[in-house]
């Protein structure tokens, strides 16, 4: 009845819709601290000269194009992640099997958000422009991807543990899985090295945190959004309700 192709197309649609929502959060919310951070960067360099990275002066891409390109990038990532999300959903055999497709998809989206966005955000909080040493970017990228991979392993292991404990009552099972996840998260946060970057003294703390919280809101919109929209698109109950209204 349900084919992989139909799930994949809905994953693309869900990713596109959540990506557009996340891009709008970027335009209306995240761009505000980004502009403030770019002003800090501008103030640093002597007029007409840029150190290494081009945000002003001799630029490869204009600021306007960066704003549009950034939003486009978020939509493209949304579509790509939606596709992978749909495939993982189709492959999952034990993820809340008793629940409705909407609940499964929503919970899966929330779990993916926790693994690939919230966990790396806790360990290596997002930094606006004007923070970050270009020399360490590959090291920081490796650390970041390591935490993402660890997060996905934790989600997978949690579903495995929940299945192993199926003989237990639900309260015992949920508590055991939560404790195991909390312990695993603590180990990841302690085991990975501290962020290598120091925050420059000329970066205002409120700009830094406004940016970080905006970034987190945008990530939540993207990943939880994919879970919600995908759930809406695949749950037969959505279509039944529509028919009832008509």
């Amino acid at each position: 009845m349900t084919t992989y192709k139909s799930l994949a197309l809905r994953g693309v649609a869900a990713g596109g819709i959540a990506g557009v929502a996340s891009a709008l959060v970027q335009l209306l919310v995240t761009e505000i601290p980004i502009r403030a951070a770019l002003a800090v960067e501008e103030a640093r360099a002597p007029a007409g000269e840029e150190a290494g990275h081009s945000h002003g002066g001799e630029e490869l891409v204009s600021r306007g194009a960066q704003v549009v390109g950034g939003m486009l990038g978020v939509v493209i990532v949304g579509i790509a992640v939606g596709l992978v999300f749909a495939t993982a959903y189709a492959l999952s055999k034990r993820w809340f099997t008793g629940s409705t497709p909407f609940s499964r998809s929503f919970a899966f989206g929330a779990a993916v958000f926790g693994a690939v966005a919230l966990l790396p955000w806790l360990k290596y909080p997002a930094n606006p422009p004007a923070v970050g040493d270009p020399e360490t970017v590959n090291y920081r990228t490796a650390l970041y991807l390591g935490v993402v991979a660890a997060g996905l392993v934790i989600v997978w292991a949690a579903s495995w543990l929940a299945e192993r404990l199926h003989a237990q009552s639900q309260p015992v099972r949920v508590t055991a899985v939560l404790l195991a996840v909390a312990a695993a998260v603590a180990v990841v946060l302690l085991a990975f090295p501290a962020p290598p970057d120091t925050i420059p003294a000329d970066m205002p703390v409120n700009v830094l945190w406004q940016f970080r919280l905006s970034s987190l809101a945008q990530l939540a919109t993207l990943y939880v959004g994919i879970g919600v929209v995908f759930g809406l698109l695949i749950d037969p109950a959505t279509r039944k309700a529509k028919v009832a209204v008509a």
Partner: protein
Amino acid sequence: MTSPAANLSAVRVPKWAFAVSVLGLIVTYLVLQENGLALGASSGLLHEFFHDGRHALGVPCH
């Protein structure tokens, strides 16, 4: 009302689904992480064009 479990086990995932997923991950990598490893010189342009999105999604950037 709903029979999700029955619905679910009916989904047969073809082999090309894995190719599609890998493509999705490659696209994500190019937009968010490419710093010259795969595309060399032209990665600078890609990096700058998607610049705000990289920062906003919390990916390490320059």
